[in-house]
C-alpha cells in the first residue's frame, strides 16, 4: 500500500517546468500568449480567469450556509456557541464580581441572587469565574485549533507539493507522532515544557498537527494533478505560488470543516490537561482547573464540580451539534440516513431545486466554490 502511495507522487516536476517554460511552440505557450494578449501580467490574468470559473458556484455555497441554519440541531449548536462566545467577550461587564477576589466570610454559599451559582471554597463568585473561564477555555481551544490547522496545512502542503526529502521527513514525523494516543503524548510534551497557559497551547498544537498534515498531503496530491494546476504551471507560476494560490484555497473548505469538527475535542484536551494540573495555575479561572480545584470539596459542595463540568459538556455538545450539521451538509450520503421527520422538514424548507449548476451536495462543487471565494478574498 505504502509503495503505491509513493509511486503516485513520483512525479517529475522539473520536467514539467521545463516543458512549460521551453521554447517549443506547444499548447502551453499558446495559452500563455493568449493570456498576455488579454493584457497585463500573464500569470495573474490567467489565474483570474481560473478564479472566475470558480466564482460561478458561489451561490451554491451561500445556500449551503442557509441550509445549515435550517438544520434544527445544527442551528441549536451554533446558537449555543454564539451565545457563549458573546458571554465570554462580555465577561468583564456581565460578571457580578471579580473572579479572583476571595471572601472568607462568604464561603460555600448556595445559589442566590447575589451569587447566581454560589461561591466556592475561598468565597469567590462561581458565576463570574465561569464567565471569565469561558474566555480562557474557549480562547485556548480556539487558538490551539488555529495553530494546529495552520501548522498542519503548511507542513502537509510542503509534503504534498515538494515531495522527496521534505515529504519523507514530514510524513515520518507524522507516523511517529501518531503512534501514541494524543493525551499520552501530550502528557509527555507538557511534562517537558512545564505547566502554564502558553505551554498548554503549544503542547496541543505539537500533538495535533500530524492528522491535519496527513489529510492535507493526501488532498494536495490529488489537487495538483488537476487541470487548473497544470494550467497555472503552464503559464509559469512558481511552485510556492501554485501552492498558496491554487492548491491551498481548494483544500481550505474541507479543512475548515475538519477543524470545526475538531473544536470540541480540542476543548476536551485543553480542559482535561488543565484538570490533571498541567494548565494554568490555581487562582486563574479555567473550567478544567476549576473542576480540579473543587475536587477536595466533593462531599461538602458537589455543586462546585457541577458548574464547570456542565459548562465544558455544554460547549463540547454545541460544537458537536454544529459540526455534525456541517458534516451532514458536505457529505452527500448522509442525506439518505437523516431521520424521516428531519428530511421532510428540510425538503419543505429548502429553496426549489438548484437553478444553476449541479446538485449542491456534490462535494466537488463545494470545493470549487470554496476555492472561488478564498481566491477572490486574497486578490
Amino acid at each position, binding site marked *: *500500500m*505504502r*509503495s*503505491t502511495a509513493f509511486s503516485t507522487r513520483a512525479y517529475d516536476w522539473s520536467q514539467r517546468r521545463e516543458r512549460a517554460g521551453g521554447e517549443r511552440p506547444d499548447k502551453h505557450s499558446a495559452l500563455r500568449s493568449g493570456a498576455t494578449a488579454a493584457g497585463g501580467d500573464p500569470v495573474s490574468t490567467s489565474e483570474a480567469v481560473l478564479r472566475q470559473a470558480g466564482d460561478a458556484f458561489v451561490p451554491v455555497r451561500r445556500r449551503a450556509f442557509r441550509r445549515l441554519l435550517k438544520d434544527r440541531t445544527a442551528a441549536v449548536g451554533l446558537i449555543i456557541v454564539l451565545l457563549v462566545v458573546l458571554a465570554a467577550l462580555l465577561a468583564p461587564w456581565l460578571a457580578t464580581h471579580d473572579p479572583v477576589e476571595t471572601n472568607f466570610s462568604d464561603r460555600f454559599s448556595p445559589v442566590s441572587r447575589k451569587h447566581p451559582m454560589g461561591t466556592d471554597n475561598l468565597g469567590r463568585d462561581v458565576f463570574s469565574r465561569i464567565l471569565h473561564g469561558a474566555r480562557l477555555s474557549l480562547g485556548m481551544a480556539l487558538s490551539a485549533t488555529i495553530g494546529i490547522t495552520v501548522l498542519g496545512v503548511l507542513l502537509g502542503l510542503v509534503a504534498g507539493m515538494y515531495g522527496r526529502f521534505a515529504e519523507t521527513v514530514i510524513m*515520518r514525523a507524522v*507516523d*511517529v507522532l501518531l*503512534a*501514541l*494516543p*494524543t*493525551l*499520552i*503524548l501530550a*502528557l*509527555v*510534551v507538557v*511534562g*517537558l515544557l*512545564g505547566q502554564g497557559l502558553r505551554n498548554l497551547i503549544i503542547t496541543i498544537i505539537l500533538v495535533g498537527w500530524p492528522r491535519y498534515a496527513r489529510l492535507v498531503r493526501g488532498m494536495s496530491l490529488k489537487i495538483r494533478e488537476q487541470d487548473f494546476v497544470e494550467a497555472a504551471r503552464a503559464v509559469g507560476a512558481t511552485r510556492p505560488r501554485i501552492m498558496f494560490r491554487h492548491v491551498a484555497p481548494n483544500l481550505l473548505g474541507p479543512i475548515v470543516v475538519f477543524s470545526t469538527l475538531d473544536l*470540541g475535542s480540542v476543548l*476536551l484536551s485543553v*480542559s*482535561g490537561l488543565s*484538570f*490533571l494540573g498541567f494548565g494554568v495555575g490555581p487562582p486563574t479561572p479555567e473550567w*478544567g482547573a476549576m*473542576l480540579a480545584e473543587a*475536587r477536595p470539596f*466533593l*462531599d461538602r459542595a*458537589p455543586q462546585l*464540580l*457541577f458548574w464547570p*463540568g*456542565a459548562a*465544558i*459538556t455544554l460547549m*463540547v*455538545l454545541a460544537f*458537536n*451539534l454544529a459540526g*455534525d450539521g456541517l458534516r451532514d451538509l458536505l457529505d452527500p*450520503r448522509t442525506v*439518505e*440516513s437523516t*431521520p*424521516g*421527520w428531519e428530511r421532510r422538514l428540510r425538503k419543505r424548507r429548502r429553496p426549489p431545486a438548484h437553478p444553476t449548476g449541479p446538485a449542491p451536495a456534490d462535494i466537488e462543487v463545494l470545493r470549487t466554490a470554496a476555492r472561488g471565494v478564498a481566491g477572490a478574498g486574497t486578490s
Partner: protein
Amino acid sequence: MARYLARRLLVAIPTLLALSFLIFLLVTNAPGDPAEEYAQRRSGSQQATAQDIENAQVELGLDRPFFVQYGTWLKGIVTGDLGESFTKRSPVYDVMRDRLGPTLELTSASVLLILIVGLPLGVMAAMFHRHWTDQIFRVIALLGASIPGFFLAYVLIIQLATELKLLPVAGRQGLASLIMPSIVVALGPIAVLSRLLRASLLEVFTEDYIRTAKSKGLGSLGVVMRHGLRNASIPVVTYAGTVLGALLEGVVVTEFIFAWPGLGLLTLEAISQRDYPVIQAAVLMSGVIYLVGSFAVDALYGVLDPRIRLEPAA
C-alpha cells in the same frame, strides 16, 4: 495476509525506534532534576548537598552522555530489561507488572460494557429508524460523546457514592468498585460505536441480499443478526483502532480520579515524580499496544470481508 502483516510489522520497527528516541529525548529534557529529588528522598531532608546530588547522578546513571544513556536504555529494552525505577528502587518491570492487573481488569470490563451496550444500542437504533426511539438514542449518543470523562466520573461519584452510598467512592475493593470507572471509560466509545453501527446497518439494509433474506421469510431480527451485522461491521471495526486510543487515554484520567492502582495512575505519578525509567517504559508500552492494535484491525478486515485483499495484486 501473513505476509502483509509481517511487512507492516517490519515497517513499524523504525517508527517504534524513532518513537523511543523521541520519548527518551522529551523525558530526559524535562525541567527538574531527578537526581536532586532522589538525594532529598534518600537523606529525608529538603536540603541535599552538592555531593549528595552528584552521588545520586552517578547512581542513577544520569552523569553519562545523552547518547550513552539512550543506548543503554535501548539495549535494555531489546533484552527485556526496562531499567530501575528512580523512586521505588525496584526494576521497572516489577513495578509495571504489579500495576498491569488492575488496568487489565478496568479495560476488559470497559470493553465488555462497550460490546454489550454499544452493539445492541446500534442495532436497535437502526431497527427503529424513523421511530421516536431512534431520536432518543440519538440524543443519548450525542450527550455520551460530549460529556468529558472527568466530569461524568464526578457526576457518578456524587450520585451513586456520596448521595446513595451504593458504590465505593474510589479505590479498588471488589467488583463494586469496578462499576463506575468502567462506565466512565466506556461511555464515549459506546456512544460513537452505536451511531456508527446504526449508520452502517442502515446502508446495508438497502442491499439486495437483505431483501432476499426478508422475502424468504426470515424475521427482522434474524435478518439483522444473520445478514446485517457482519456486513455492517467493517466501518465499526475501523473505529476499533480509535477505541483503543480512547481506552488508553481514558484509563489515565479515570485511574487518576478513582485512585485505581493501574498503569495510567502509575504514568501520572511517574511524570510528577520525574521517574524517567517508568515514564519511558509506560509511554513506549502504550505506543506498542496502539500499533499492535492497528495491525489487529487491519487483520480483522480480511477475516470479516474476504473481498478485501490487503496484499497488492502482483
